[in-house]
């Protein structure tokens, strides 16, 4: 009996140690980036003095700031597309029977499970065949399309759990479907929509694989960072990375609060 207890203690300690090591592995790169963003000289150890120069450089980097604005624009538009198309898609999947429904469901989810490159080259091929010039518009269409799946899955999950008797009551009392949706259904899925929208925004802000193929002359932020990286290691990248990290951390916490309120 005591042997068993000792064994269990060793096991529990082993699991804790393993988990701690994994946490260290997950956070090491982030720590490195943040520390190096303040490093005065180059990107190698040891640190020889701290500086905010890399941040100052960043705020003077016109193309980079422009690319950030482009990214905001793309992400905002992608959210609109994904929500406007995704909500009716989720409603249809939940409530309607139609021929080809299974295919529809599968195709909508494809961009989420396929490597981004496949969706990227498909859309590139499609736009070029249609004679459409690559620009931020093609990037927006690509992001919107690829991220519909996020809204569909989140909203559909919520619809499935929803109690339909309220809707039935509204309809029995003569409310037309649109009013029923707006006053009964939508309040029930609102937090799911908000959470999904936030997710789409964050994913779009960091999307590279699809963007890589659809980008015209104006860069998005990840693509601008990508070209900086391709040119070699520059401490400026550490600074922008730290800022991106802080922004995504804030977005996650916001999303987390939203989910918390709902449950």
């Amino acid at each position, binding site marked *: 009996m005591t042997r068993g207890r000792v064994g269990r203690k060793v096991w529990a300690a082993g699991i804790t140690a393993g988990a701690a090591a994994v946490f260290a592995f997950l956070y090491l790169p982030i720590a490195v980036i943040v520390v190096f963003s303040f490093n005065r000289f180059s990107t190698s150890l040891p640190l020889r003095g701290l500086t905010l120069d890399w941040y100052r450089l960043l705020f003077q980097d016109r193309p980079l700031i422009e690319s950030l604005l482009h990214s905001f624009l793309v992400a905002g538009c992608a959210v609109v597309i994904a929500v406007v198309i995704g909500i009716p898609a989720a409603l249809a999947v939940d409530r309607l029977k139609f021929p080809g429904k299974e295919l529809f469901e599968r195709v909508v989810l494809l961009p989420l499970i396929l490597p981004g490159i496949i969706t990227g080259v498909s859309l590139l091929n*499609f736009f070029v065949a249609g004679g459409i010039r690559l620009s931020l518009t093609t990037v927006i269409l690509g992001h919107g399309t690829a991220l519909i799946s996020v809204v569909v899955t989140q909203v559909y999950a919520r619809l499935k759990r929803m109690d339909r008797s309220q809707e039935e009551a509204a309809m029995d009392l003569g409310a037309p*479907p649109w009013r029923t949706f707006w006053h009964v259904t939508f309040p029930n899925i609102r937090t799911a929509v908000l959470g999904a929208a936030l997710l789409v925004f964050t994913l779009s802000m960091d999307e590279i694989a699809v963007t890589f193929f659809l980008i015209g002359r104006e860069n998005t932020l990840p693509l601008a960072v990508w070209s900086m990286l391709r040119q070699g290691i520059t401490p400026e990248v550490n600074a922008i990375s730290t800022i991106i990290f802080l922004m995504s951390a804030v977005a996650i916490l916001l999303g987390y609060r939203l989910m918390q309120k709902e449950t």
Partner: protein
Amino acid sequence: METGRASGWRPYATLLLPPLAWVLLFLILPYGLLFACSFWKLTPAQTIAPDWNLQNYLHLFRNAVYLRTLGRSAAIAAAVTLLSLLLAFPVAYWLAFQVKRHKKLWYMLAIIPLWISYLVRAYAWKTILGTGGVLNAFLVGIGVTDQPIAMFLYSPVAVIITLTHIYTPFVLMPVYAMLEQIPPALLEAAEDLGAGPWRTFTRVVLPLSMPGVVAGCTFAFVLSLGDFLSPLLVGGPTGIMISNIVVSLFGAAYNWPLGAAISLVMLLLVLAIITLANRLEARTKYV
């Protein structure tokens, strides 16, 4: 009741039109066009002619370079999947059975790295693994080596480390979701019946977590198989993966039909894996 509900919505099937039209235009058509393009060919004048043939596929299967690269990509993806699972499991287990306080916070901390820009993380590993990087400084510092080791960066190993860092949280989430559903009483029962922790783990915990393991592993494998950014950033010439070939065919090497054919092979491979995984997931489901 069921029919009444359905008939209330049926006249409003117009609801379906915008999503259906969008999916047809921006998903089904592009994927279909890629499929068609893979059977077309590049004319000597560098235009794409809808001249149906199997040349691209024959070229693919006759040239060792494509199959070898595909094989390497699969091997890298398999290593990433295995490592991600090995790293994710202890954390998921710890979260599910050992953490008593601030469980949600710890879970959040475990998946926050998921939300950090892909490029930032790949770049971080470049900084860590490089000759002037943190790892080498550490090794030289503790006297393991007196010269920085160049082989960490620009190798398949660097790609594997970077992708493992990226996909560990992806595996963690579904595994944790499964572990959390296991009633602690089940573990106590196993213990009361005399099973040690290891036996409880292999006979109770692991089988019950299988659907999550399969889901997470599928995700990690499929997405790392198609990755082209990490190989470009940290892979070097020996870390080239199949998607890098696609990138170059759609770019400088300019041969879209061949690129489309490789994409199609990847697509079919991925769909086959997902179908297989779905079956496996359904079969391993206990509850």
